Protein backbone atom coordinates (compact mmCIF):
# COMPACT_ATOMS: atom_id res chain seq x y z
CA UNK A 1 0.00 0.00 0.00
CA UNK A 2 1.24 3.46 -0.84
CA UNK A 3 1.95 5.79 2.08
CA UNK A 4 -0.74 8.40 2.76
CA UNK A 5 0.65 11.88 2.58
CA UNK A 6 -0.88 15.18 3.67
CA UNK A 7 0.15 18.83 3.56
CA UNK A 8 -0.78 21.47 6.12
CA UNK A 9 -0.04 25.15 6.30
CA UNK A 10 0.46 27.37 9.32
CA UNK A 11 1.85 30.91 9.49
CA UNK A 12 3.51 31.27 6.11
CA UNK A 13 3.20 32.61 2.60
CA UNK A 14 2.27 29.15 1.26
CA UNK A 15 5.12 29.52 -1.21
CA UNK A 16 6.56 26.14 -0.32
CA UNK A 17 3.28 24.43 -1.16
CA UNK A 18 3.00 26.31 -4.42
CA UNK A 19 6.48 25.14 -5.17
CA UNK A 20 5.30 21.55 -4.96
CA UNK A 21 2.41 22.18 -7.31
CA UNK A 22 4.99 23.40 -9.80
CA UNK A 23 6.55 19.97 -9.95
CA UNK A 24 4.59 19.10 -13.11
CA UNK A 25 7.36 17.04 -14.66
CA UNK A 26 7.76 14.82 -11.65
CA UNK A 27 4.24 14.87 -10.25
CA UNK A 28 3.17 11.62 -11.90
CA UNK A 29 6.29 9.85 -10.66
CA UNK A 30 5.59 11.09 -7.15
CA UNK A 31 2.02 9.83 -7.25
CA UNK A 32 3.36 6.38 -8.08
CA UNK A 33 4.93 6.29 -4.63
CA UNK A 34 2.39 8.08 -2.42
CA UNK A 35 -1.31 8.91 -2.06
CA UNK A 36 -1.94 12.54 -1.34
CA UNK A 37 -4.92 12.60 1.02
CA UNK A 38 -4.98 16.18 2.19
CA UNK A 39 -3.72 19.30 0.49
CA UNK A 40 -5.82 22.40 1.01
CA UNK A 41 -4.17 24.29 -1.79
CA UNK A 42 -4.89 21.58 -4.34
CA UNK A 43 -7.79 19.42 -3.17
CA UNK A 44 -10.65 18.99 -0.66
CA UNK A 45 -10.21 15.41 0.65
CA UNK A 46 -9.63 14.68 4.32
CA UNK A 47 -8.25 11.66 6.17
CA UNK A 48 -7.91 10.41 9.74
CA UNK A 49 -4.38 9.09 9.60
CA UNK A 50 -1.31 10.14 7.67
CA UNK A 51 1.86 8.21 7.08
CA UNK A 52 3.71 11.42 6.35
CA UNK A 53 2.42 14.87 7.30
CA UNK A 54 4.23 17.81 5.70
CA UNK A 55 3.96 21.02 7.68
CA UNK A 56 4.52 24.43 6.24
CA UNK A 57 4.70 27.61 8.30
CA UNK A 58 5.59 28.58 11.83
CA UNK A 59 3.50 28.17 14.96
CA UNK A 60 2.39 31.62 16.12
CA UNK A 61 -0.97 31.42 17.87
CA UNK A 62 -2.70 29.25 20.49
CA UNK A 63 -4.95 27.76 17.82
CA UNK A 64 -1.88 26.77 15.78
CA UNK A 65 -0.55 24.91 18.83
CA UNK A 66 -3.79 22.99 19.19
CA UNK A 67 -3.93 22.11 15.51
CA UNK A 68 -0.33 20.94 15.23
CA UNK A 69 -0.79 18.65 18.24
CA UNK A 70 -3.83 17.17 16.55
CA UNK A 71 -1.94 16.57 13.31
CA UNK A 72 1.00 15.08 15.16
CA UNK A 73 -1.26 12.59 16.93
CA UNK A 74 -2.57 11.39 13.57
CA UNK A 75 0.79 11.18 11.74
CA UNK A 76 3.47 8.51 11.70
CA UNK A 77 6.10 10.87 10.35
CA UNK A 78 6.03 14.62 10.51
CA UNK A 79 8.19 16.72 8.21
CA UNK A 80 8.78 20.47 8.56
CA UNK A 81 8.79 22.12 5.14
CA UNK A 82 10.62 25.36 4.54
CA UNK A 83 12.28 27.96 6.73
CA UNK A 84 9.13 29.01 8.64
CA UNK A 85 8.36 25.48 9.77
CA UNK A 86 11.98 24.50 10.41
CA UNK A 87 13.09 27.50 12.44
CA UNK A 88 10.35 30.13 12.45
CA UNK A 89 11.86 31.79 9.40
CA UNK A 90 11.29 35.47 8.71
CA UNK A 91 8.23 35.33 10.97
CA UNK A 92 10.56 34.97 13.92
CA UNK A 93 11.86 38.50 13.39
CA UNK A 94 8.85 39.63 15.39
CA UNK A 95 10.28 37.79 18.40
CA UNK A 96 13.02 40.43 18.54
CA UNK A 97 10.43 43.00 19.62
CA UNK A 98 8.09 43.09 22.64
CA UNK A 99 4.98 41.12 21.72
CA UNK A 100 2.58 43.92 22.70
CA UNK A 101 4.36 46.33 20.43
CA UNK A 102 4.12 43.82 17.56
CA UNK A 103 0.38 43.31 18.11
CA UNK A 104 -0.25 47.01 18.19
CA UNK A 105 1.71 47.61 15.00
CA UNK A 106 -0.14 44.86 13.16
CA UNK A 107 -3.68 45.07 14.51
CA UNK A 108 -3.83 48.58 15.93
CA UNK A 109 -6.84 49.04 18.20
CA UNK A 110 -8.08 45.52 17.49
CA UNK A 111 -5.01 43.97 19.04
CA UNK A 112 -6.97 42.30 21.86
CA UNK A 113 -9.09 40.37 19.36
CA UNK A 114 -6.16 38.34 18.09
CA UNK A 115 -4.23 36.03 20.35
CA UNK A 116 -0.61 35.74 19.32
CA UNK A 117 2.53 33.90 20.38
CA UNK A 118 6.18 34.31 19.42
CA UNK A 119 6.71 32.68 16.00
CA UNK A 120 8.06 29.22 16.73
CA UNK A 121 9.56 26.37 14.77
CA UNK A 122 7.24 23.37 14.53
CA UNK A 123 9.87 21.43 16.46
CA UNK A 124 9.45 23.83 19.38
CA UNK A 125 5.94 22.44 19.86
CA UNK A 126 5.86 18.84 18.62
CA UNK A 127 8.35 16.18 17.58
CA UNK A 128 9.59 16.75 14.03
CA UNK A 129 11.09 13.74 12.27
CA UNK A 130 12.62 15.36 9.23
CA UNK A 131 13.05 18.79 7.72
CA UNK A 132 13.35 20.39 4.31
CA UNK A 133 15.02 23.75 4.64
CA UNK A 134 14.97 26.91 2.58
CA UNK A 135 12.71 29.83 1.70
CA UNK A 136 11.12 28.48 -0.29
CA UNK A 137 12.23 24.90 0.06
CA UNK A 138 13.61 23.69 -3.26
CA UNK A 139 11.73 21.11 -5.27
CA UNK A 140 14.92 19.10 -5.58
CA UNK A 141 15.32 18.97 -1.85
CA UNK A 142 11.71 18.00 -1.33
CA UNK A 143 11.95 15.20 -3.88
CA UNK A 144 15.15 13.90 -2.34
CA UNK A 145 13.48 13.65 1.04
CA UNK A 146 10.40 12.00 -0.39
CA UNK A 147 12.48 9.42 -2.27
CA UNK A 148 14.58 8.76 0.81
CA UNK A 149 11.45 8.10 2.86
CA UNK A 150 10.00 5.87 0.13
CA UNK A 151 13.26 3.88 0.07
CA UNK A 152 13.34 3.72 3.83
CA UNK A 153 16.64 5.52 4.21
CA UNK A 154 17.55 8.40 6.50
CA UNK A 155 17.26 11.63 4.51
CA UNK A 156 20.62 13.36 4.17
CA UNK A 157 21.24 16.23 6.55
CA UNK A 158 23.28 19.09 5.20
CA UNK A 159 25.91 20.57 7.40
CA UNK A 160 28.19 22.08 4.79
CA UNK A 161 28.09 25.77 3.93
CA UNK A 162 26.58 27.18 0.73
CA UNK A 163 30.16 28.12 -0.28
CA UNK A 164 30.95 24.47 -1.00
CA UNK A 165 28.41 24.13 -3.79
CA UNK A 166 29.18 27.66 -4.96
CA UNK A 167 32.89 26.86 -5.31
CA UNK A 168 32.20 23.59 -7.07
CA UNK A 169 30.21 25.53 -9.67
CA UNK A 170 33.18 27.88 -10.03
CA UNK A 171 31.10 30.96 -9.29
CA UNK A 172 32.91 34.21 -8.78
CA UNK A 173 32.73 34.94 -5.05
CA UNK A 174 30.20 37.71 -4.40
CA UNK A 175 32.60 39.23 -1.87
CA UNK A 176 34.81 39.89 -4.90
CA UNK A 177 31.90 41.86 -6.37
CA UNK A 178 31.60 43.99 -3.27
CA UNK A 179 28.60 42.15 -1.83
CA UNK A 180 28.19 40.74 1.66
CA UNK A 181 26.98 37.14 1.49
CA UNK A 182 25.91 34.74 4.25
CA UNK A 183 27.10 31.72 2.24
CA UNK A 184 30.06 30.89 4.51
CA UNK A 185 27.88 30.08 7.54
CA UNK A 186 24.63 29.05 5.88
CA UNK A 187 23.63 25.43 5.53
CA UNK A 188 23.96 24.33 1.90
CA UNK A 189 22.02 21.85 -0.18
CA UNK A 190 20.49 24.59 -2.35
CA UNK A 191 23.07 24.18 -5.12
CA UNK A 192 24.07 27.77 -4.29
CA UNK A 193 21.18 28.93 -6.41
CA UNK A 194 21.17 32.58 -5.24
CA UNK A 195 24.91 33.28 -5.60
CA UNK A 196 24.85 31.50 -8.95
CA UNK A 197 22.48 34.21 -10.15
CA UNK A 198 24.39 37.06 -8.55
CA UNK A 199 22.19 37.36 -5.47
CA UNK A 200 24.00 37.17 -2.13
CA UNK A 201 22.91 34.47 0.30
CA UNK A 202 20.45 35.65 2.97
CA UNK A 203 20.72 32.55 5.12
CA UNK A 204 17.31 31.01 4.40
CA UNK A 205 18.44 27.44 5.06
CA UNK A 206 19.60 28.23 8.55
CA UNK A 207 22.98 28.58 10.19
CA UNK A 208 25.47 25.68 10.32
CA UNK A 209 25.98 23.68 13.49
CA UNK A 210 28.62 25.32 15.71
CA UNK A 211 29.06 28.47 13.61
CA UNK A 212 31.81 30.99 14.25
CA UNK A 213 29.40 33.93 14.62
CA UNK A 214 31.87 36.46 15.93
CA UNK A 215 34.26 35.59 13.11
CA UNK A 216 31.41 36.00 10.64
CA UNK A 217 30.42 39.40 12.05
CA UNK A 218 34.05 40.55 11.77
CA UNK A 219 34.18 39.25 8.22
CA UNK A 220 31.01 41.12 7.27
CA UNK A 221 32.04 44.39 8.87
CA UNK A 222 35.48 44.10 7.24
CA UNK A 223 33.62 44.09 3.95
CA UNK A 224 32.10 47.44 4.63
CA UNK A 225 28.78 47.09 6.44
CA UNK A 226 28.05 48.23 9.98
CA UNK A 227 27.86 45.79 12.86
CA UNK A 228 24.20 46.62 13.21
CA UNK A 229 23.51 45.84 9.56
CA UNK A 230 25.58 42.64 9.79
CA UNK A 231 23.48 41.44 12.74
CA UNK A 232 20.24 42.30 10.97
CA UNK A 233 21.29 40.27 7.95
CA UNK A 234 22.15 37.32 10.12
CA UNK A 235 18.84 37.50 11.95
CA UNK A 236 16.64 37.85 8.86
CA UNK A 237 15.91 34.12 8.64
CA UNK A 238 17.50 33.01 11.86
CA UNK A 239 16.10 35.07 14.71
CA UNK A 240 15.24 31.85 16.55
CA UNK A 241 18.55 30.15 15.77
CA UNK A 242 21.23 32.68 16.70
CA UNK A 243 21.78 34.77 19.77
CA UNK A 244 23.66 37.97 18.99
Amino acid at each position, binding site marked *: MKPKVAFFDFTSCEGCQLNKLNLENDLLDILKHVDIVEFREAMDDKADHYDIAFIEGSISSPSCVERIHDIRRRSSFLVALGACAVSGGVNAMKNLHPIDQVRETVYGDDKYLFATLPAMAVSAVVKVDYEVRGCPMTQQDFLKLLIALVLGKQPQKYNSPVCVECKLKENECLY*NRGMVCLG*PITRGGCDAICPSFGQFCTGCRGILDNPNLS*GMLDLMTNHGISLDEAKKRMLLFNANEVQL
Partner: protein
Amino acid sequence: MECFSLLRSDVPAFIDHLGGFGEVVAPHSKGEVSYTFEVVKDSSQVILDYNRTLLPLKKMFLPPVETMLNFSLKDASFTPVEIEISPRLFFGVHSYEMQSILRLDHSMLSGKVESNYFRRRQSSRFVGISFHPDEFHFSESVGITIEEMEGFDLFLNEIEGDFQVYVLSKNGAALLKGFEYIESTNPEVIEGRSFKKKIRYHYNRLPRVFQYAYNSPIWAEVASRCVGCGACTLTCPTCFCFDVNDEVTVTAEDGMRQRSWDSCMLAAFAEVAGGENFREKTSNRTRHRLFRKFKYITDEEGLPWCVGCGRCTAFCPAGISLPDIVNELIGEDEKAQLPRSVRV
Protein backbone atom coordinates in the same frame (compact mmCIF):
# COMPACT_ATOMS: atom_id res chain seq x y z
CA MET B 1 66.71 24.56 -26.28
CA GLU B 2 64.95 25.69 -29.40
CA CYS B 3 63.36 29.10 -29.16
CA PHE B 4 61.04 31.05 -31.42
CA SER B 5 59.55 34.50 -31.33
CA LEU B 6 55.77 34.89 -31.51
CA LEU B 7 53.85 38.15 -31.82
CA ARG B 8 51.01 38.71 -29.36
CA SER B 9 48.71 39.42 -32.30
CA ASP B 10 49.47 35.96 -33.72
CA VAL B 11 48.54 34.09 -30.55
CA PRO B 12 44.89 33.45 -31.59
CA ALA B 13 46.15 31.93 -34.83
CA PHE B 14 48.59 29.86 -32.78
CA ILE B 15 45.76 28.58 -30.56
CA ASP B 16 43.75 27.68 -33.67
CA HIS B 17 46.77 25.78 -34.95
CA LEU B 18 47.10 23.90 -31.65
CA GLY B 19 43.46 22.89 -32.06
CA GLY B 20 44.75 20.45 -34.66
CA PHE B 21 46.08 18.32 -31.82
CA GLY B 22 42.80 18.12 -29.92
CA GLU B 23 40.55 20.08 -27.62
CA VAL B 24 42.26 23.23 -26.34
CA VAL B 25 41.57 24.43 -22.79
CA ALA B 26 42.69 27.95 -21.88
CA PRO B 27 41.97 30.80 -19.45
CA HIS B 28 38.87 32.90 -20.10
CA SER B 29 37.22 35.77 -18.28
CA LYS B 30 34.53 34.91 -15.75
CA GLY B 31 32.24 37.21 -13.81
CA GLU B 32 33.47 40.73 -13.18
CA VAL B 33 37.05 40.24 -12.06
CA SER B 34 37.75 36.50 -12.35
CA TYR B 35 39.14 33.87 -14.69
CA THR B 36 38.43 30.25 -15.47
CA PHE B 37 39.89 27.44 -17.57
CA GLU B 38 37.47 26.61 -20.36
CA VAL B 39 37.42 24.79 -23.66
CA VAL B 40 38.35 27.29 -26.38
CA LYS B 41 35.54 28.01 -28.82
CA ASP B 42 36.84 31.34 -30.07
CA SER B 43 40.60 31.80 -29.74
CA SER B 44 40.25 35.59 -29.57
CA GLN B 45 38.48 35.16 -26.20
CA VAL B 46 41.49 33.51 -24.57
CA ILE B 47 43.07 35.67 -21.87
CA LEU B 48 46.85 35.81 -21.83
CA ASP B 49 47.29 38.10 -18.82
CA TYR B 50 45.47 36.74 -15.81
CA ASN B 51 46.35 36.41 -12.17
CA ARG B 52 44.75 33.06 -11.36
CA THR B 53 41.67 31.09 -12.32
CA LEU B 54 38.90 30.52 -9.76
CA LEU B 55 39.31 26.75 -9.82
CA PRO B 56 42.65 25.13 -10.55
CA LEU B 57 43.36 23.11 -13.68
CA LYS B 58 42.81 20.04 -11.48
CA LYS B 59 39.12 20.30 -12.38
CA MET B 60 39.94 18.94 -15.84
CA PHE B 61 41.37 15.72 -14.39
CA LEU B 62 39.29 15.35 -11.24
CA PRO B 63 35.97 17.06 -12.02
CA PRO B 64 34.26 18.84 -9.07
CA VAL B 65 31.32 16.46 -9.46
CA GLU B 66 31.77 13.17 -11.27
CA THR B 67 29.39 10.28 -11.87
CA MET B 68 31.23 7.04 -11.20
CA LEU B 69 28.46 4.56 -12.01
CA ASN B 70 24.76 4.33 -12.77
CA PHE B 71 22.72 1.82 -10.84
CA SER B 72 19.34 0.19 -10.98
CA LEU B 73 17.54 -0.46 -7.71
CA LYS B 74 15.22 -3.04 -9.28
CA ASP B 75 17.86 -5.69 -9.79
CA ALA B 76 20.76 -4.18 -7.79
CA SER B 77 22.95 -3.89 -10.85
CA PHE B 78 25.17 -1.12 -12.17
CA THR B 79 26.76 0.17 -15.34
CA PRO B 80 30.18 1.78 -15.07
CA VAL B 81 30.66 5.24 -16.54
CA GLU B 82 33.33 4.94 -19.20
CA ILE B 83 35.86 7.73 -19.43
CA GLU B 84 36.76 8.72 -22.95
CA ILE B 85 40.43 9.24 -23.55
CA SER B 86 40.83 12.11 -25.96
CA PRO B 87 43.82 14.34 -26.67
CA ARG B 88 43.60 17.64 -24.81
CA LEU B 89 45.92 20.59 -24.82
CA PHE B 90 46.10 23.02 -21.92
CA PHE B 91 47.16 26.46 -23.04
CA GLY B 92 48.27 29.44 -21.01
CA VAL B 93 49.12 27.52 -17.86
CA HIS B 94 51.23 29.19 -15.14
CA SER B 95 54.28 27.44 -13.72
CA TYR B 96 52.75 26.88 -10.25
CA GLU B 97 49.68 25.33 -11.87
CA MET B 98 51.85 22.88 -13.83
CA GLN B 99 53.69 22.03 -10.63
CA SER B 100 50.36 21.34 -8.95
CA ILE B 101 49.49 18.85 -11.70
CA LEU B 102 52.84 17.09 -11.20
CA ARG B 103 52.10 16.89 -7.46
CA LEU B 104 48.61 15.59 -8.16
CA ASP B 105 50.16 12.95 -10.41
CA HIS B 106 52.13 11.77 -7.44
CA SER B 107 49.14 11.75 -5.09
CA MET B 108 46.83 10.03 -7.56
CA LEU B 109 49.26 7.51 -8.99
CA SER B 110 51.04 6.42 -5.80
CA GLY B 111 49.69 3.40 -4.01
CA LYS B 112 46.61 2.36 -5.87
CA VAL B 113 46.44 4.11 -9.22
CA GLU B 114 43.39 6.36 -9.48
CA SER B 115 42.13 5.10 -12.82
CA ASN B 116 39.79 7.98 -13.66
CA TYR B 117 42.54 10.52 -13.11
CA PHE B 118 45.03 8.43 -15.05
CA ARG B 119 42.74 8.15 -18.06
CA ARG B 120 42.04 11.87 -18.21
CA ARG B 121 45.65 12.77 -17.61
CA GLN B 122 47.03 10.61 -20.40
CA SER B 123 47.50 12.23 -23.80
CA SER B 124 47.46 15.76 -22.42
CA ARG B 125 49.84 18.51 -23.57
CA PHE B 126 50.73 21.66 -21.69
CA VAL B 127 51.66 25.06 -23.05
CA GLY B 128 52.86 27.33 -20.29
CA ILE B 129 52.89 31.10 -20.07
CA SER B 130 54.76 33.54 -17.85
CA PHE B 131 52.82 35.80 -15.48
CA HIS B 132 53.12 38.93 -13.40
CA PRO B 133 52.79 38.01 -9.73
CA ASP B 134 50.11 39.91 -7.83
CA GLU B 135 49.93 40.50 -4.09
CA PHE B 136 48.82 36.88 -3.46
CA HIS B 137 51.26 34.81 -5.52
CA PHE B 138 54.16 33.44 -3.50
CA SER B 139 55.27 30.45 -5.57
CA GLU B 140 58.91 31.53 -5.52
CA SER B 141 58.87 30.89 -1.76
CA VAL B 142 58.00 27.26 -2.41
CA GLY B 143 60.67 26.86 -5.07
CA ILE B 144 58.68 27.63 -8.21
CA THR B 145 59.86 30.53 -10.34
CA ILE B 146 57.75 32.24 -13.00
CA GLU B 147 59.81 30.52 -15.68
CA GLU B 148 59.84 27.03 -14.10
CA MET B 149 59.22 24.89 -17.18
CA GLU B 150 59.12 21.36 -15.81
CA GLY B 151 56.14 19.50 -17.20
CA PHE B 152 55.45 21.83 -20.12
CA ASP B 153 55.79 20.91 -23.78
CA LEU B 154 55.98 24.55 -24.84
CA PHE B 155 56.41 27.70 -22.80
CA LEU B 156 55.49 31.24 -23.79
CA ASN B 157 57.70 33.79 -22.08
CA GLU B 158 56.45 37.34 -22.40
CA ILE B 159 59.01 39.84 -23.62
CA GLU B 160 57.88 43.43 -23.98
CA GLY B 161 54.36 42.41 -24.87
CA ASP B 162 55.27 39.68 -27.35
CA PHE B 163 56.44 36.14 -26.63
CA GLN B 164 59.36 33.80 -26.90
CA VAL B 165 58.24 30.19 -27.36
CA TYR B 166 60.54 27.59 -25.78
CA VAL B 167 60.37 24.06 -27.10
CA LEU B 168 60.66 21.72 -24.13
CA SER B 169 59.80 18.28 -25.46
CA LYS B 170 59.44 16.24 -28.61
CA ASN B 171 55.71 16.63 -28.23
CA GLY B 172 56.21 20.36 -28.06
CA ALA B 173 58.23 20.38 -31.27
CA ALA B 174 55.49 18.34 -32.95
CA LEU B 175 52.90 20.89 -31.86
CA LEU B 176 54.79 23.68 -33.62
CA LYS B 177 55.07 21.78 -36.89
CA GLY B 178 53.33 23.57 -39.72
CA PHE B 179 52.83 26.85 -37.84
CA GLU B 180 54.32 29.64 -39.92
CA TYR B 181 54.11 32.77 -37.82
CA ILE B 182 57.15 32.03 -35.67
CA GLU B 183 60.78 32.85 -36.15
CA SER B 184 63.81 31.18 -34.67
CA THR B 185 65.55 33.35 -32.07
CA ASN B 186 67.80 33.22 -29.01
CA PRO B 187 66.25 32.98 -25.56
CA GLU B 188 66.50 36.18 -23.55
CA VAL B 189 66.73 36.51 -19.81
CA ILE B 190 63.87 38.53 -18.41
CA GLU B 191 64.38 40.69 -15.38
CA GLY B 192 62.13 42.69 -13.17
CA ARG B 193 59.29 40.21 -12.55
CA SER B 194 59.35 39.65 -8.85
CA PHE B 195 57.10 38.31 -6.14
CA LYS B 196 55.63 40.77 -3.66
CA LYS B 197 54.46 38.13 -1.19
CA LYS B 198 57.04 35.91 0.43
CA ILE B 199 57.53 33.30 3.08
CA ARG B 200 60.49 34.41 5.20
CA TYR B 201 62.39 31.12 5.10
CA HIS B 202 63.62 29.02 2.23
CA TYR B 203 61.20 26.13 1.88
CA ASN B 204 63.78 23.58 2.94
CA ARG B 205 63.73 25.12 6.42
CA LEU B 206 59.97 24.78 6.80
CA PRO B 207 59.84 21.09 7.82
CA ARG B 208 61.76 22.03 10.95
CA VAL B 209 59.38 24.88 11.70
CA PHE B 210 56.40 22.57 11.27
CA GLN B 211 58.01 19.90 13.38
CA TYR B 212 57.54 22.16 16.40
CA ALA B 213 54.34 23.89 15.29
CA TYR B 214 51.82 21.20 16.17
CA ASN B 215 50.78 22.69 19.51
CA SER B 216 51.19 26.33 18.54
CA PRO B 217 48.60 28.85 19.83
CA ILE B 218 48.53 30.25 16.29
CA TRP B 219 46.06 27.56 15.17
CA ALA B 220 43.43 28.75 17.62
CA GLU B 221 44.06 32.38 16.68
CA VAL B 222 43.53 31.60 12.99
CA ALA B 223 40.46 29.51 13.84
CA SER B 224 38.90 32.47 15.64
CA ARG B 225 38.81 34.30 12.32
CA CYS B 226 37.97 31.28 10.13
CA VAL B 227 34.26 30.80 9.45
CA GLY B 228 34.79 27.30 8.02
CA CYS B 229 33.50 27.87 4.48
CA GLY B 230 36.07 25.54 2.91
CA ALA B 231 37.05 27.96 0.12
CA CYS B 232 40.79 27.54 0.81
CA THR B 233 40.78 23.79 0.25
CA LEU B 234 38.13 23.71 -2.47
CA THR B 235 40.21 26.06 -4.62
CA CYS B 236 43.57 24.50 -3.73
CA PRO B 237 45.28 22.90 -6.73
CA THR B 238 46.96 20.15 -4.72
CA CYS B 239 43.96 19.20 -2.54
CA PHE B 240 42.11 16.14 -3.78
CA CYS B 241 39.76 14.94 -1.04
CA PHE B 242 36.34 13.85 -2.15
CA ASP B 243 33.04 12.54 -0.85
CA VAL B 244 30.75 9.97 -2.49
CA ASN B 245 26.96 10.13 -2.57
CA ASP B 246 24.23 8.08 -4.19
CA GLU B 247 21.52 10.09 -5.93
CA VAL B 248 18.24 8.36 -6.72
CA THR B 249 15.91 9.64 -9.45
CA VAL B 250 12.24 10.50 -8.76
CA THR B 251 11.14 7.16 -10.11
CA ALA B 252 12.97 5.55 -7.15
CA GLU B 253 14.12 2.87 -9.59
CA ASP B 254 17.55 4.03 -10.63
CA GLY B 255 20.22 6.56 -9.85
CA MET B 256 23.90 7.31 -9.89
CA ARG B 257 26.87 7.23 -7.57
CA GLN B 258 28.64 10.57 -7.64
CA ARG B 259 31.76 11.87 -6.07
CA SER B 260 32.34 15.52 -5.39
CA TRP B 261 35.19 17.54 -3.98
CA ASP B 262 35.22 17.65 -0.21
CA SER B 263 37.24 19.70 2.23
CA CYS B 264 39.06 18.77 5.43
CA MET B 265 38.12 22.27 6.68
CA LEU B 266 34.46 21.28 6.91
CA ALA B 267 33.20 20.26 10.34
CA ALA B 268 31.86 16.80 9.45
CA PHE B 269 34.88 15.72 7.38
CA ALA B 270 36.36 13.32 9.92
CA GLU B 271 33.11 12.24 11.57
CA VAL B 272 32.30 8.51 11.61
CA ALA B 273 28.91 6.79 11.59
CA GLY B 274 28.74 6.46 15.37
CA GLY B 275 29.08 10.26 15.74
CA GLU B 276 32.70 10.45 16.88
CA ASN B 277 34.47 13.39 15.20
CA PHE B 278 38.24 12.98 15.03
CA ARG B 279 38.92 16.62 14.12
CA GLU B 280 36.19 18.48 15.91
CA LYS B 281 37.74 21.93 16.38
CA THR B 282 38.35 24.44 13.60
CA SER B 283 41.88 24.89 14.94
CA ASN B 284 42.56 21.16 14.45
CA ARG B 285 41.29 21.40 10.90
CA THR B 286 43.33 24.51 10.09
CA ARG B 287 46.41 22.76 11.38
CA HIS B 288 45.63 19.67 9.33
CA ARG B 289 45.30 21.81 6.19
CA LEU B 290 48.69 23.43 6.70
CA PHE B 291 50.36 20.18 7.69
CA ARG B 292 49.04 18.60 4.51
CA LYS B 293 50.80 21.34 2.58
CA PHE B 294 54.08 21.60 4.49
CA LYS B 295 54.69 18.49 6.55
CA TYR B 296 53.04 15.14 5.83
CA ILE B 297 53.75 14.59 2.13
CA THR B 298 56.71 17.00 2.29
CA ASP B 299 58.49 14.73 4.78
CA GLU B 300 58.34 11.92 2.24
CA GLU B 301 58.87 13.78 -1.00
CA GLY B 302 61.08 16.67 0.10
CA LEU B 303 58.87 19.28 -1.56
CA PRO B 304 56.21 21.58 -0.17
CA TRP B 305 52.76 20.40 -1.29
CA CYS B 306 51.79 24.06 -1.69
CA VAL B 307 52.61 25.68 -5.03
CA GLY B 308 52.12 29.30 -4.00
CA CYS B 309 49.22 30.09 -6.33
CA GLY B 310 47.66 32.22 -3.61
CA ARG B 311 44.11 30.97 -4.15
CA CYS B 312 43.46 30.00 -0.52
CA THR B 313 44.41 33.52 0.48
CA ALA B 314 42.86 35.45 -2.40
CA PHE B 315 39.54 33.59 -2.10
CA CYS B 316 39.27 33.53 1.71
CA PRO B 317 36.37 35.80 2.61
CA ALA B 318 37.85 36.26 6.07
CA GLY B 319 41.18 37.40 4.63
CA ILE B 320 43.23 34.62 6.21
CA SER B 321 46.62 34.48 4.52
CA LEU B 322 48.55 31.22 4.26
CA PRO B 323 51.98 32.87 3.91
CA ASP B 324 51.15 35.03 6.93
CA ILE B 325 50.36 31.92 9.00
CA VAL B 326 53.65 30.32 7.94
CA ASN B 327 55.55 33.52 8.73
CA GLU B 328 53.91 33.67 12.16
CA LEU B 329 54.95 30.07 12.81
CA ILE B 330 58.49 30.99 11.76
CA GLY B 331 58.43 33.96 14.13
CA GLU B 332 57.22 31.80 16.96
CA ASP B 333 59.86 29.18 16.21
CA GLU B 334 62.60 31.83 16.26
CA LYS B 335 61.31 33.20 19.53
CA ALA B 336 61.29 29.73 21.08
CA GLN B 337 65.00 29.43 20.35
CA LEU B 338 65.91 32.54 22.31
CA PRO B 339 66.94 32.34 25.95
CA ARG B 340 63.88 32.40 28.19
CA SER B 341 64.88 35.73 29.72
CA VAL B 342 64.72 37.69 26.45
CA ARG B 343 61.48 36.20 25.05
CA VAL B 344 58.69 38.75 24.95
